């Protein structure tokens, strides 16, 4: 579980280029403009490659995946 969390933090940092999300896992990634819609799609593609968890971008509900902690929870429950 901890490993998944770390891996997802790494992905978000890698895609957003923003180191602070590692420590601020509850900030709203979209409101703070850390991720835009293109980066969000990129993140989903990376999650699919990394964990085999497929979340279709057309089904993405932003409010369910707008913080690092929510992304970790969403991926964990699908593993």
């Amino acid at each position, binding site marked *: 579980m901890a490993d998944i969390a770390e891996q997802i933090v790494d992905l978000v940092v890698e895609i957003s280029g923003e180191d602070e999300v590692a420590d601020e896992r509850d900030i709203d990634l979209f409101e703070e403009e850390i991720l835009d819609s293109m980066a969000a799609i990129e993140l*989903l593609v990376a999650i699919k490659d990394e964990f085999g968890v497929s979340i279709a971008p057309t089904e993405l509900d932003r409010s369910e995946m707008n913080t690092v902690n929510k992304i970790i929870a969403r991926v964990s429950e699908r593993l």
Partner: protein
Amino acid sequence: MTGSELVDAIDAQALQNPDRVAFCNSRGEQITYAELRARSNALACWLADSTHVDSGVPVVIYGHKSPYMLVSMLACAKSGHAYAPVDTVYPPERVARIVAQTGNTLLIDTTASGSGKSGAGDARLLSIAELTEICTSTPCEDEVAALPGTDATRTFYILFTSGSTGDPKGVEITTECVDEFSRWMMSDYVFEEDGPRIWFNRTPYSFDVSITDLVCGTTRGDTTFALEKEADASLGTTFEVLATCDATDWVSTPSFVEQCLADDKYNATLMPHLKRMLLAGETLRPATVREVKRRFPGLHVYNGYGPTESTDLITLCEITDEMLADDVALPIGYAKKWSDLVVLDPETLEEVPDGKPGELFVAGNTVAKGYYGRPDLTEVAFGRCPEHLARGRRSYRTGDEVTREADGLYYFHGRLDLQIKLHGYRIELGDIEATLCATPLVHMACVLPVRRGGAIHHLTAFVVPAGDAAERGLRLTRQIKAQVRDMLPSYMIPRTFKYLDEMPLNSNGKADRKALADLIDA
């Protein structure tokens, strides 16, 4: 006759296919060829009256993919005005600069919300209510017959692109440019034999990739279907539109296609009528084309390239299976018909042999007049091609490094200066830097592209904060972003900010981009 082959062709469609839809959008608005002709004639009569707007001056057309933008463009040509299209993606301050640069004449606001008002400045404003009233009036035949029209050497449109000092620069495209571009596309891309097409349009009209859809779509009496930004905001709503638009022809940047490919539902079941896809505006990767062809069996995929200064595209070719056989860079195409493309050594301006990289120059009738009201910038970029190669025609120095192979195909390598393309948007890094430094929070700024897999992925800003910006990190980033939002469109705002105590400088006293690039890679 209006003096423009394109405008005449569209008017002819109004007589041949009056009820055919010329343009529609994902908001459900549409306009037929007969309506397009009648409304543009009515508006042209109003524009030709010099008590409303001085004759011959440029007019700003503000809005987002509304039928009235098309009506206004045609009306400008018919009444002898150049038009400058400005999409709502531009924030008010940037709109105001464009309005000021075109002489504060007239801004036609085609938005229902009236958002053009905030950027109109001293220009006369024509609201959607007034516009609708004028366009639905019926001018007398004599008035229409007396319209001045345009001519080959007159400016047809002025497209504003990012300028290196923070001021957008307006590229002046003539009627001859547009007409020759249209003729080339009809001969080398759009073939006569097939029936009416539906062109999927995603690019806003202040960017020149849209010229391909609009010109090709209307010349032959086809339908242009525009995806609006409301529907473009999420892939879910985009796909709903794609499923119902019946598009046969797709024109966009590669990065938009890559976004769509992230969802498995993007395939021939979603868009069963799609026959052709033209991609331009940035580097096209073989993997993207391979995946598109897998999802859409039998689809013809084309790669195009060209600067705004030479009317949208100057090279074009179909991407064949042979080109995809090895994982090597794809060609940007063969040279545009009737134009001369020459590859020169950027220092000596001597021709380089096939197979060797050099700077691309283009000479011909689709080269712009220059930058509107900026003879200084025009002189640097235009007319620099040696006379024996330009053969007496206008020429433009692209600043792009390319190679021409013996088979006539061109390959793009990159820029020779600080201009970049991000997701198809052309950006001068100096434009962003000047805007950042104009805020009280920033002392010095240097913006760099961050690359992944060979392509530019996002922008990052290295900033030395001003004295009174105490806190660094996310909070300061948010404050800076909020301050530049009125000046820069969102695609020009760097995604990430890094803070420095001092800027590394090179021997010329300028920011050392190489040292900063090493910080990104570290």
